[in-house]
């Protein structure tokens, strides 16, 4: 696939045009990535509302049927289920780590075990979440899949 970049100082807004004969795997992945990058979700926080880019999410957790998105240093409630989130953004780094939690693998610093052999996921912002043993193999398979795609 050829990529052309044009510098146009007078352009009102940055733009990407994609020309294709047919949508193959490569094109589909690029479209998915662009969709992911362009999509935002609406987060509520008491009396504030904000647009959240999926790539800014560290992890999501469902507490009492409410879905919370944890960003670098803020928490927002979003009207979305974890399954919908995974369906829409699963290919962009989101993977389930427990029944009520989904993590963005691009925000993970490293994995670590503790004395109880629990697998801790240390995030870039220093927060720690636990990888449930039930979702362990699913998590590792997802990492492998992402490595192959990249």
């Amino acid at each position, binding site marked *: 696939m050829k990529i052309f970049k044009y510098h146009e100082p007078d352009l009102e807004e940055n733009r990407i045009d994609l020309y294709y004969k047919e949508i193959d795997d490569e094109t589909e992945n690029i479209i998915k990535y662009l969709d992911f990058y362009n999509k935002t979700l609406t987060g509520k926080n008491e009396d504030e509302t904000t647009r959240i880019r999926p790539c800014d999410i560290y992890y999501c957790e469902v507490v009492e049927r409410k879905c919370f998105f944890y960003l670098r240093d803020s928490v927002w409630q979003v009207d979305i289920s974890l399954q919908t989130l995974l369906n829409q953004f699963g290919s962009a780094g989101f993977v389930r780590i427990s029944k009520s939690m989904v993590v963005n*693998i691009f925000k993970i610093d490293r*994995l*670590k*075990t503790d004395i109880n*052999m629990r697998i801790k996921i240390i995030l870039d912002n220093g927060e720690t979440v636990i990888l*449930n043993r039930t979702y362990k193999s699913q998590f590792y398979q997802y*990492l492998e899949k992402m*490595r192959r795609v*990249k």
Partner: protein
Amino acid sequence: MQLINKKNFLPIVCIVYTILSFSKIIFEIKLGYKDPNYVENFIMLFLMSLIATFVLSLHYYLQKIPLPIVILGQYIFLVGIIMLSIWIGGHLQNNASTAYRDMFWSFTIPYIIGAIIYYAVILFQIKKANKTLSELKKEG
């Protein structure tokens, strides 16, 4: 993900039993040993496979309990069951004087080896996952 479920429970028991039976036969051929309680021990092996698979299937329901406690608890439970079955068997036939000790070591050694392998696999998986994560981050 539930690894042992209702659908695959019996096939797993059969696989475990086959592996144990083959190991026993090969071991005996290598040592030139002839088991005097051949039939009873094969039935015992099947019961052990059944109970061990059942206990391992409980692993899924014990996610919130720390792993070392689960492994130790399962070990104590299984040793208890084995000792009980030897005790019951002792009422139906004569046990060897070293029956309890032999069964204790026959079970404990493979269990410890299994637990060490399990721990090593966990550590290896973490190491591999950390490598993959850093590769993914480098590539953006």
